[in-house]
């Protein structure tokens, strides 16, 4: 019987969610360069590794739209066409960047500055309000390892890690044994605040059933009770008064508490005001005990995108270079408001799928104008693009740096080669920069 020769790559960092698990083991068949086994990853991470294998929806060659159809082209043709589109546009948008590595993100900033374009990352549709609130009121936070070792009260507010960050509970926040939490789950009290009895809530010790869009009221009621004020109403935001007192009692008694919050706070009415209040509540809780707060970041390197953009421009997202220097105003320069106002006349999308993830009217406006996608797979964005530049998947087919949700940088590993003519995001952006400079007459 023929034996399969397999290489195993250890300590692989998973490029799916912000938990950035760093203990994966990936088996790659040497003859075919295919991923055949992934150990330790969650279901989604495993699916991402398998998605790197050849499939009908993987791009292996650059494509240009000719007579309404995407047709294969050479790299030179595709880069030429993309550079033409970008240099002809008056207000181009560069969007995405959260599912690629930091070096490519840096190149994105360089290209945006040369073009005088809008530069935005996916934080603008998820944790953008968190960044706004952190700029307003700061944030008392820590690394995930500290929570693992110390936290005895964990609150998930508007966040459902069983679905969105599947290994977060097992690695940092619920089941894991820590230095001071030797009995793992039994040493922690877990509270979930959510309008739905989510799977995370079903395995928690307490579920607070808050009304949708009323988290702000509930947090302010908690802050009032913390200050010794009696609540007048029998229930606030759908939560009975007694339950609020019980929760306040719990948080005051714990030794080390943490709030993990998600889209339930950032994508509902009040947006950044929710986070403002959550941070202020956390700060006030430190009058009684130790309490910290951490956003549950979605894309594996969205923290990296915010960090790289910040050290280059001073701002984390929604940056406008049209005056030659970076300006920041999320209500005005974020992708969705710009597209809703039909201000953008060409888009370059890097490792993202806004056609799936933006509200429909903004997608309609994006499709009116030329669209370039740097993307490994067919997505609703790339399928309607004018130029598709096939990319290697960062963290699987090329290495690089990514930032975990707590801003710890980790090195991504390459486990296999990219198929066909795929280049890394960084190489593609470098080629684009060179070509754009040529066209603009810059050196």
């Amino acid at each position, binding site marked *: 019987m023929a034996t399969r020769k397999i290489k195993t790559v250890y300590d692989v960092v998973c490029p799916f969610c912000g938990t950035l698990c760093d203990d994966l083991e990936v088996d790659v068949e040497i003859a075919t360069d295919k991923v055949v086994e992934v150990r330790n990853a969650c279901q989604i991470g495993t699916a991402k590794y398998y998605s790197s294998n050849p499939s009908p929806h993987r791009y292996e060659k650059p494509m240009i739209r000719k007579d309404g159809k995407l047709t294969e082209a050479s790299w030179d043709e595709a880069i030429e066409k993309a550079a033409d589109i970008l240099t002809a546009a008056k207000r181009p948008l560069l969007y995405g960047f959260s599912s690629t590595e930091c070096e490519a993100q840096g190149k994105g900033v360089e290209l945006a500055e040369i073009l005088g374009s809008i530069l935005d990352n996916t934080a603008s549709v998820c944790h*953008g309000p968190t960044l706004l609130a952190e700029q307003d009121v700061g944030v008392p936070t820590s690394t995930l390892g500290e929570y693992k070792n110390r936290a005895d009260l964990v609150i998930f507010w508007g966040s459902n890690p069983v679905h969105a960050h599947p290994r977060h509970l097992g690695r940092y926040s619920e089941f894991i044994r820590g230095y001071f939490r030797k009995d793992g789950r039994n040493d922690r009290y877990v509270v979930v605040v959510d309008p739905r009895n989510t799977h995370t809530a079903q395995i928690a010790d307490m579920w607070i059933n808050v009304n949708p869009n009323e988290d702000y009221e509930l947090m302010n009621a908690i802050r009032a009770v913390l200050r010794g004020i009696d609540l007048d109403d029998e229930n606030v935001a759908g939560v009975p008064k007694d339950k609020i007192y019980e929760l306040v009692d719990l948080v005051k008694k714990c030794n080390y508490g943490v709030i993990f919050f998600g889209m339930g706070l950032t994508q509902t009415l009040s947006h950044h005001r929710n986070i403002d209040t959550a941070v202020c509540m956390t700060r006030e809780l430190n009058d009684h005990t130790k309490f910290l707060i951490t956003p549950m970041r979605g894309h594996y390197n969205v923290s990296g995108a915010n960090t790289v953009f910040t050290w280059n421009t001073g701002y984390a997202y929604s940056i406008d270079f049209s005056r030659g220097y970076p300006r920041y105003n999320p209500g005005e320069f974020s992708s969705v408001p710009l597209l809703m106002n039909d201000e953008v006349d060409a888009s370059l999308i890097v490792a993202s799928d806004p056609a799936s993830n933006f509200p429909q009217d903004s997608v309609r406006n994006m499709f009116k104008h030329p669209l370039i996608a740097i993307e490994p797979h067919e997505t609703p964005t790339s399928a309607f693009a004018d130029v598709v530049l096939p990319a290697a998947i960062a963290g699987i087919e090329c290495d690089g740096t990514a930032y975990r949700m707590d801003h710890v940088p980790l090195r991504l590993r390459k486990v296999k080669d990219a198929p066909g003519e795929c280049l890394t995001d960084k190489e593609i952006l470098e080629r684009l920069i060179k070509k754009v400079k040529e066209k603009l007459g810059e050196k």
Partner: protein
Amino acid sequence: MSLNNLTLLTGRTINQGIALEGGKTTKENVRAAAICTFDKSDFKELDCMVGTPVKVTTDYGEVVVYSTITEEGPHPGIIFIPMGPWANQVVNPDTQATGTPTYKGMKAKVEVMKGGKVLDALQLIGQLKEG
């Protein structure tokens, strides 16, 4: 056969996550994300079989998706569509000057559409290209 005054929430589910990594243009993504989950009591009032297409309408648009009963209940009065192209046809694009659309908490109504057609991701998004 129809329900008014519901609140629509959207968000990540693990099946939607697996499907998007497995291929956004595949049937798996339709099965994972082109669904609307109802509380048991609401679904009873809807009086249809699980899997019957329903039309979800908000102030911002409408979309036809498959109906199903939630595993994450009880949440009477609340319906849930996983994040993705289908949910985004009916979300509130207003960002209240933060840049982030209001993806959760829209008022919605639901109508049973026996024989209604649930579009796949490319068909659905393709409509925006033509329009």
